[in-house]
């Protein structure tokens, strides 16, 4: 298996997945659903989740209740069989109390099974900034750290491009599965970044060692050997982490599922990008430096 030689295939696969994500975003956007399923933490508003409504409840009844109070229908989404999530513009306390009382009366449920969150526009504006800042700052910090540790900027750059790729795939996953983009989005994406760079580092650590042993003339060969030597490790550790996070996805409550799914996806694509992309990128950068003649 010559990964470096077949690098174009892997690049194309990655680009295709990212394009599919962008396609979904465009499709949703043109249908008026927004690029992502932005939760109120990103766009502001009130979110009301009522649980234990019984299986027979209908979305129309709920939207009637909402429009009685605020003259607009709100966004209504079933969560599992007996719960509903309602998103509206920011409501004040009287409106919220009103809606809660009406739902309680209609379905005979307790106050403590209704969860309400209100986020003002101040916070939501900040969230978008913070999400971007979080990815940018961690990538720059990791770029600096890796470049210094390996004394090779090419390695740092390859790792970070692979990371940005992972971030894009995770974003695509949010777009495709319409996972609500909320508070835990930042945590999920940073976890993926922090985790997926590990595999790249292990590979480059091998490269460092093999170059000492085999010399650095035949970059393609040395890189291939390094990837192969760390292949099983890359696979196994992804598996152990995969087990734990998959268990969370299967058994967890809704909010945990929404947090676990992107991480599951991130672990898979992080392993992929470390094995198939990071090394190839380094090879390309390395050939540039040596000049086109010796690049083969």
């Amino acid at each position, binding site marked *: 298996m010559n990964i470096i030689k077949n690098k174009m295939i892997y690049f194309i696969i990655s680009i295709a997945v990212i394009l599919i994500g962008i396609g979904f975003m465009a499709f949703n956007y043109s249908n008026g659903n927004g690029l992502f399923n932005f939760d109120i933490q990103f766009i502001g508003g009130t979110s009301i989740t009522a649980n234990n409504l019984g299986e027979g409840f209908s979305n129309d009844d709920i939207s009637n209740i909402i429009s009685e109070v605020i003259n607009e229908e709100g966004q209504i989404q079933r969560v599992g069989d007996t719960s509903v999530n309602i998103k509206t513009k920011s409501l004040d306390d009287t409106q919220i109390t009103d809606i809660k009382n009406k739902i309680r009366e209609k379905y005979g449920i307790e106050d403590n099974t209704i969860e309400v969150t209100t986020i003002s526009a101040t916070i939501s504006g900040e969230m978008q900034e913070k999400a971007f800042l979080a990815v940018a700052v961690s990538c720059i910090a990791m770029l600096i750290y890796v470049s210094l540790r390996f004394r090779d900027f090419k390695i740092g750059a390859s790792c970070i491009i692979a990371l940005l790729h992972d971030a894009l795939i995770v974003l695509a996953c949010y777009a495709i599965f319409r996972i609500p983009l909320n508070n835990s989005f930042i945590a999920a994406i940073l976890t993926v970044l922090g985790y997926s760079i590990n595999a790249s580092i292990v590979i480059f650590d091998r490269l460092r060692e093999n170059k000492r042993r085999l010399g650095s003339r035949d970059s393609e060969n040395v890189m291939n050997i390094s990837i192969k030597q760390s292949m099983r490790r890359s696979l196994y550790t992804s598996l152990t982490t995969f087990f734990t996070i998959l268990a969370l996805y299967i058994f967890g409550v809704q909010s*945990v599922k929404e947090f676990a799914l992107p991480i599951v996806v991130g672990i898979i694509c992080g392993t992929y990008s470390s094995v198939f992309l990071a090394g190839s990128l380094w090879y390309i950068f390395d050939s540039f430096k040596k000049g086109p003649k010796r690049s083969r």
Partner: protein
Amino acid sequence: MKRKNMIILIILLIAALGMSAISYFGIDAPELGLNKTLSAENIKKGLDLSGGVYIVYQAKDSEGNLMNDPSGDDMSAASQLLRTRLDLSGWTDGEVSIEGGNRLRVEIPGIDNAEEAIKGIGQAGVLAFLDETGNVVVSGDKVANASVGISDSGTGKAGYYCINLEFNSEGAGDFKTATENNIGKPIYITLDGVPLSWPTVQNVIPNGRATITGEFGKEEATTLANLINSGSLPFSLEVIEQQSIGATLGADALSTSLFAGLVGIILVIIFMIIFYRFSGIAADWALIIYLSAELIILNGLNITLTLPGIAGIILSVGMAVDANVIIFERIKEELSAGRTLRLALENGFSRAFPAIVDSNITTLIACAVLFWLGTGPIRGFAQTLAIGIVLSMFTALVITRFIVKGFVGVGIKNPKFFGGK
């Protein structure tokens, strides 16, 4: 040699069993005031697990604009105000914290209704100075500042703290009249109708500068000064974020996550034994020490466990064995290259070291960014993950090494047991 290794293994076995027992049952010693201390169920739980309400306030000026940099003194005064209101409403386990210098986060566990809580604690404080008959003699907005000072024998009892009150020019006039009419009588300082202090007027104060003396400790005096300031805050508080979480839902979230964690951990343990045999057992052994240590440390440092925090711990289990996998794969390689078991183990641990440290540091970088930018539960996630990474690096590199060497030392020497062929 054999004996020494046996002792090491026994010590580590006791450590694993003892630490698991502590993290599960806690330490019960009523005579020392310990009740299930350090047990997992004693870990402080966040609102998303215990149920409750949180409200985030931001300062808003008189024109209705949100303020980004109110003064630190005003913020602590506002925080004191909310704290007092929580206590007055009977929510004594509620907490108030200042977030990012311009916000106040109020967390109240165990209640269902954020709207009611906001009504109870949200409005601006009404400060007033009343005479004995209950008439307002100076209104609270005429206080310019209240600060803490130290009494000397000239102004009060030496060595105690006092509160220096300063009125604005209008307030100075009102206060002069008030002191003229009430010499020898108390003036009540009230916040939202609750008397905070009732100093007796000793003489007429014409210049708007008064001192409240008494046997105040530093903390008492600071609280009183903050509360007086809170009644004359230059801003009001606007709710910018609120959430209520039902207690049953929180409990559900906790139990399902714990179950998920258990399943994940058992899978990891089985995986390691199947693929790495005795090395795998050593890794699992270290993993158990790591997990109980993490729980005990969360408890000891009084870190609040949130739902993402649990996810962080469970995730860190998967990552914890990562270091071991790197080491064991290395050992396998060294064995198949024909090295002796002793040398293979030695090389495996030492050669895997830099990769393990580097990869953990990058994850720590992500945690640091998350802690810096995150609020509430997300910070909990960053904390548990960071503690997990540091701890697991230690258990994977040091504890596992002791155990593996111990195995070899007591006579488990067949390379097959460590992944060789």
